[in-house]
């Protein structure tokens, strides 16, 4: 080809226009889709009825969340192979001891774990009083929408999710979230759920 491509005014304008269209489209898409993603899709789980939770417990008993209406139930998804869970369990055991009389109960969901390993962990962390539901395949964790361990859900007396925390909870979190939901101390005998 002997002809050199002529750079016409029209061609420059067309190139600039094309670049402009692509950039605007990119920015619009990034903003629109970014906003979609930024709104935490799981935030609306607060206030929703808690998923079901029923089955045989680690100590050979049985637990049913639906039967605990009126109590404040903390559901903690954990596993013996999870380091932060080891630090968190003593806090939860302590909270249950402190608030049991006011209708507070902790249920552990032991995800993809073995009963012996879980028992050992509970004994080591002084949490062997907690009700633990084994979930060897992880289907209970998925039913609750858990992404990892530990993860904590606070179920109010009406059976709705009041609070939810990814990662270990702190003593401050428990105080802030649990205490306001609990009834007056020193209930009469027989009020303890179970």
């Amino acid at each position, binding site marked *: 080809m002997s002809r050199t491509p002529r750079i016409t005014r029209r061609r420059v304008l067309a190139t600039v226009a094309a670049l402009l269209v692509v950039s605007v489209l990119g920015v619009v898409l990034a903003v629109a889709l970014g906003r979609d993603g930024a709104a935490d899709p799981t935030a609306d789980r607060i206030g929703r009825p808690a998923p079901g939770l029923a089955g045989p417990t680690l100590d050979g008993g049985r637990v049913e969340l639906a039967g605990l209406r009126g109590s404040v139930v903390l559901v903690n998804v954990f596993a013996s192979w999870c380091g932060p869970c080891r630090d968190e369990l003593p806090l939860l055991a302590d909270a249950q001891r402190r608030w049991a009389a006011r209708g507070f109960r902790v249920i552990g969901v032991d995800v*993809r774990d*073995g009963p012996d390993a879980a028992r050992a962990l509970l004994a080591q962390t002084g949490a062997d009083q907690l009700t633990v539901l084994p979930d060897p395949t992880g289907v209970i*964790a*998925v039913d609750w929408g858990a992404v*990892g361990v530990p993860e904590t859900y606070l179920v109010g007396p009406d059976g709705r999710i009041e609070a939810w925390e990814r990662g270990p909870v702190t003593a401050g979190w428990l105080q802030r979230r649990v205490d306001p939901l609990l009834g007056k101390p020193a209930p009469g005998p027989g009020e303890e759920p179970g």
Partner: protein
Amino acid sequence: MTARRALLAAVLLLALGAATVGVWRPFDAEAGGDPVRRLAGQLRCPACQGESVADSQSPIAVAMRQVIADQLARGRTPGQVRAYLVDRYGPDVLAAPPAHGAGLVLWLLPAVVLVGTTGAAIWRGRRRGRGKAGGRSDEHPPSGTRDRSRRRRDRQLAGRRFPLVWNLAATAVVAGVVAVAVVGTLGGGDRPPPAVPADPVPGQLALARQLEQQGQFDAAAEVYRTVLASRPDDGVRLRLAFTLVRSGRPVEAAGLADQVLAARPDDPQSLLVLGLAQRATRSAAATDTLRRFLAVDPANPAAPEIRRLLDEG
């Protein structure tokens, strides 16, 4: 048809075939076989970066695969399972962008660009053809080889038969690829569940094996027990027994081996696991049982190790 044209046509056909196969294969691989894997491949692992539920080894992804298998086995459609997981993990769990709002632009843009550029290319090609066939030869006086090649091109373009064939063929290739992509993406989306519902057992067995390999024998035993509850199978029973021996529960293991031996007294695997369980409980019968195992199946991969154990006493 000249040899040159035949060659071009052959190349074109080859390109069309390659394009179709290339686009079809990924969808076919996804669609065929395991419906659990297929659905898991359309979901994003919520605990990972850029990995699908099908590919991730994170505990929650493995658990999600189990949920998918369970629900499909119960006869729920892939759409229902997807809705269940979106309800729990939000729409971000879907790997494909939503087909509404800003997400719709992502779906439509490639089609618009494809149709636009194809149309523009055809239009331009035809206009240039007309232009060249027209008064161009007046601008540059013809001379030498350039003249020959131009004459040939002019001949081709003037009739517009050749460009038209090319245009049609190129459009066919593009349309074919688009059609395959659309069929592959949308076609399989909400297929009814297969006539034979997905069986959760293979997934559970794979999970148990994996747990065994990780040394989590208790968890593995738990999963084997789940499988046994739905499928009383001697193979699974013996796997459970082996796992129990390794997790330090030989009495239970011996019980399971006895169950299998009651039906098949000379089953080598049962004799092996019973012998190992007896050995773990320091039972005097262990040596006898293991000798029987060696007698029944001397070529068993475990036999040399058992001989060594017996020699040790």
